[in-house]
């Protein structure tokens, strides 16, 4: 596939972004990232004492992937928390790319649209390249674009649910109304078929974590998602057929053998034979 994914002036061959959490081991995480073909991976920051050296170990593992890093602000509930964590991320990871998360509800981890817009505005001023994890609300998405976001990441479903594209009407509306904005479906994808569907709908990429990490064989699942995303994108480019309400035969009907014109039916009726015999063909 030669068509590139363009985000904030960078080009990528892969349209699958993956998270690095929840894997059975760091080695399986690294192998899964490689199998996914992803060039952009997410990671985060948490409190750590000097005795815990796994921060450096994780960092070493992640650097070895050679991927573009996309640090997140997972767990932040206010713009103030987001700004501090974003600055800390930029210092440690050396990138101004940021997966912006402002969580508005602890149970469904729904983005807080008001905090999101406020935080995005400030982060853009500070030079961050913001990729907000947002709801599928058109107006919220427009406001995020207004404050300087160049990429949007609407949810498919709540994080970790694996329920796929919950609100296709809203997602389709986003795609149609924001045709020039890179849109990445982030969160809620549970199966390759769902990722494929998102790509068929015209989304530019898919970001997921749990569906790969929690598979019985994460490496195999990573490869499956890679194929699904590529397939969905190719299908979108190829142009899907229009849906129809009624059946339409694909095999030619012209010169169908055994078929008789209605006139033969009429003859049959004249002879007192069962009506509609000719329709059996």
């Amino acid at each position, binding site marked *: 596939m030669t068509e590139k994914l363009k985000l904030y002036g960078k080009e990528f061959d892969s349209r699958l972004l993956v998270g690095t959490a929840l894997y059975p081991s760091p080695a399986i995480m690294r192998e899964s990232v490689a199998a996914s073909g992803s060039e952009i991976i997410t990671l985060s920051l948490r409190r*750590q*004492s000097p005795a815990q050296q796994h*921060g450096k170990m994780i960092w070493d593992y992640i650097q070895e992937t050679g991927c573009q890093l996309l640090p997140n602000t997972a767990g932040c509930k206010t713009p103030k928390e987001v700004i501090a964590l974003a600055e800390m991320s930029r210092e440690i990871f050396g990138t101004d790319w940021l997966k912006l998360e402002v969580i508005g509800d602890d149970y469904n981890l729904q983005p807080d649209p008001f905090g999101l817009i406020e935080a995005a505005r400030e982060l853009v001023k500070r030079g961050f390249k913001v990729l907000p994890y947002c709801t599928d609300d058109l107006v919220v998405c427009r406001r995020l674009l207004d404050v300087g976001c160049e990429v949007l990441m609407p949810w498919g479903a709540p994080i970790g649910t694996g329920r796929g594209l919950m609100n296709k009407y809203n997602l389709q509306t986003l795609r149609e109304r924001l045709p020039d904005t890179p849109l990445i479906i982030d969160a809620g994808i549970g199966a390759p078929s769902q990722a494929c569907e998102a790509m068929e709908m015209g989304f530019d990429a898919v970001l997921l974590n749990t569906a790969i990490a929690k598979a019985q064989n994460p490496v195999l699942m990573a490869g499956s998602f890679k194929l699904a995303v590529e397939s969905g994108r190719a299908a979108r480019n190829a142009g899907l057929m229009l849906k129809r309400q009624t059946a339409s035969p694909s095999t030619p009907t012209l010169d169908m053998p055994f078929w008789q014109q209605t006139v033969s039916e009429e003859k049959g009726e004249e002879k007192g034979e069962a009506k509609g015999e000719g329709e059996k063909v």
Partner: protein
Amino acid sequence: MQLLVNGESISLPEGATVAALIQQLGYSGETFAVALNGDFVPRASYEQAALNTGDSLDIVAPVVGG
């Protein structure tokens, strides 16, 4: 003076800075970052960042994430 570092109480001499705290706790390398009372403290400011009783510090490092 008493401070909170990652939620735990720690004693430091009066007038200590973030740089002194980092040294006392044994952080090294560049895979950590600091926030003081919720505000980011750039690495270049550790020497100047004075601490006071009751301050709360967060010291973070990379973890996996989704």
